[in-house]
């Protein structure tokens, strides 16, 4: 089932023609922004020099830092009065960045969300619980508008009060939920404590943070639903940029709205299909805030294989943000890799924390993971064996030694929004 079959399945020459046409329009929008006028001048290039899609490689990048420096309205291509909504990015590092939307932007965004939700099997009349923050975070209102456009019955639950969330799911017959994977895990845990199940729940839309295949298996088992990966970023409207179809083998990114490139994050060089690098997106339909070659920081690759669902080229699941990547004794480590290992081990629980310290000029990675009640035999030797097994499994995947600490169940923090499982205590001591 499609929401907009023509756009969703557009490929080859037709797609390229549309993309080029929209790219030219978008560059025209960008020229209304003083930042881009001077950036293009410095690079010695004019929008008119872009004659084919390949020419996009000649354009300058836009970084998160650029956006921050434009705070608050430096990147608007329309008069402020034409902006009918403002969101900000989570601002985990430094000043937040502002994203503005015109009326047309909001309609475009809602359509993309509707495409995604239709793709995973939701239909008019389904009851949908949106269990993410409804404020400045784009996940709340973004999904809300898309779901309303489709005619779903929306439960704007927000975050928190997990017991009430579970009661609502059961009382309202909720069939789909949207939240972060970490919060979904917490909901599962609380439901277990309450001794209840949520039989109406069929579909889980999980996003806003990278999560692993083992996390998917765990969530599907615990919540008895089908879990889909949702990808987006505020700079590109918010969630809805790319989404999994029922094949669950990569995410369909909406090529009519986003021009995707994969680059080597160090050299900026464009990489080919099946080569992992940083995703760079040039939005093609954004009116209030057109961006040019925005460096997302997200590590992925363009896939070469087609998809039985008939939609366009996929990207692989996001391994992590370049920002989240930890460099431990020179080795790159993504928190999602740690999650993948831990969730694959039945001996330990699902919650963990990662601490990075520098001791004697060496980076040390300490991982705290919760014990599982069922696997405790009462013997210290068995605990030591579990600890060794976890350490070995982590070393196999990460290629580094870690210190594993088993902690009591329920003792580690639970997250309602984006999980913050990594604490880097190295500071600026170099």
């Amino acid at each position, binding site marked *: 089932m499609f929401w907009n079959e023509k756009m969703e399945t557009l490929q080859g020459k037709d797609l390229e023609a549309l993309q080029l046409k929209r790219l030219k329009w978008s560059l025209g929008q960008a020229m209304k922004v003083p930042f881009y006028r001077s950036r293009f001048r410095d690079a010695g290039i004019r929008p008119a020099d872009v004659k084919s899609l390949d020419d996009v490689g000649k354009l300058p990048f836009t970084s998160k830092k650029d956006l921050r420096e434009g705070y608050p309205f430096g990147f608007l291509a329309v008069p402020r009065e034409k902006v009918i909504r403002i969101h900000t990015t989570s601002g985990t590092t430094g000043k937040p960045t502002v994203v503005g939307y015109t009326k047309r932007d909001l309609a475009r965004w809602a359509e993309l969300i509707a495409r995604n939700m239709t793709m995973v099997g939701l239909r008019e009349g389904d009851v949908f619980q949106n269990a993410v923050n409804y404020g400045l975070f784009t996940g709340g209102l973004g999904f809300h508008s898309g779901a309303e456009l489709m005619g779903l019955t929306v439960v704007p639950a927000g975050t928190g009060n997990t017991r009430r969330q579970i009661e609502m799911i059961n009382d309202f017959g909720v069939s789909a939920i949207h939240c972060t994977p970490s919060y979904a895990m917490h909901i599962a845990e609380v439901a277990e404590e309450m001794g209840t199940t949520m039989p109406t729940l069929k579909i889980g839309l999980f996003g806003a943070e990278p999560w692993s295949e083992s996390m998917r298996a765990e969530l599907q088992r615990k919540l008895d639903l089908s879990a889909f990966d949702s990808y987006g970023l505020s700079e590109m409207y918010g969630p809805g940029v790319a989404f999994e179809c029922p094949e669950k083998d990569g995410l369909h990114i909406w090529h009519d709205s986003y021009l995707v490139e994969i680059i080597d994050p160090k050299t900026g060089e464009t990489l080919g299909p099946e080569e992992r690098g940083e995703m760079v997106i040039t939005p093609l339909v954004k009116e209030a805030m057109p961006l040019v070659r925005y460096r997302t920081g997200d590590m992925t690759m363009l896939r070469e294989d087609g998809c039985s669902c008939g939609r366009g080229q996929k990207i692989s699941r996001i391994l992590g943000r370049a920002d989240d990547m930890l460099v431990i004794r020179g080795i790159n480590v993504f928190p999602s890799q740690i999650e993948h290992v831990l969730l694959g081990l039945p001996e330990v629980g699902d919650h963990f924390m990662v601490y990075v310290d520098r001791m004697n000029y060496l980076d040390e990675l300490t991982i705290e993971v919760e*014990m599982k*009640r069922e696997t*405790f*035999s*009462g*013997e*210290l*030797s068995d*605990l*030591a064996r579990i*600890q060794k097994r976890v350490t070995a499994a982590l070393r196999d995947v990460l290629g580094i030694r870690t210190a594993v*600490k*088993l*902690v*009591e*169940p*329920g*003792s580690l923090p639970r997250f309602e929004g984006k999980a913050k499982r990594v604490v880097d205590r190295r500071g600026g001591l170099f």
Partner: protein
Amino acid sequence: MDTEEFVIRQISVFSENKPGRLAAMARALQEEQVNILAFSIAEAGEFGVVRALVDQPDKAYKKLSGMGFVVSFTEVIGVKMRDEPGGLYEVARILGEAKINIEYSYAYSGKEMAVLILRVDNTREAIKQIRAHGGEMARIPSGPSPVKGR
């Protein structure tokens, strides 16, 4: 007399090695009026296992689990010790000759005499051997054993 009578259910509790965990356990047991007969702590760096013999194991298990502790039952045996040179050798020799391995042990001083608590790799055989060689087993009422025998 039946061997099963001498199988003692020890409470084993997983604990992180941090201040206040033992106090929390001990206080909870006091509230439940559960008497601790003997206990020991085995630790491996960041975490450990608190082992305890109590007079009401099921009550203790329920209380501690309810508080979020990870608890399990472990089978141990108690051997009464003569307070004279050679007492420990006697027990160790019997088990050694029967090829029974001692995994860990600790002791408690009862009202009448000292008791050696042993975790062995073959609980029932150990009881038979010690009794067959004239050793005296301590009987600690701990209810029927729900743990799998070994």
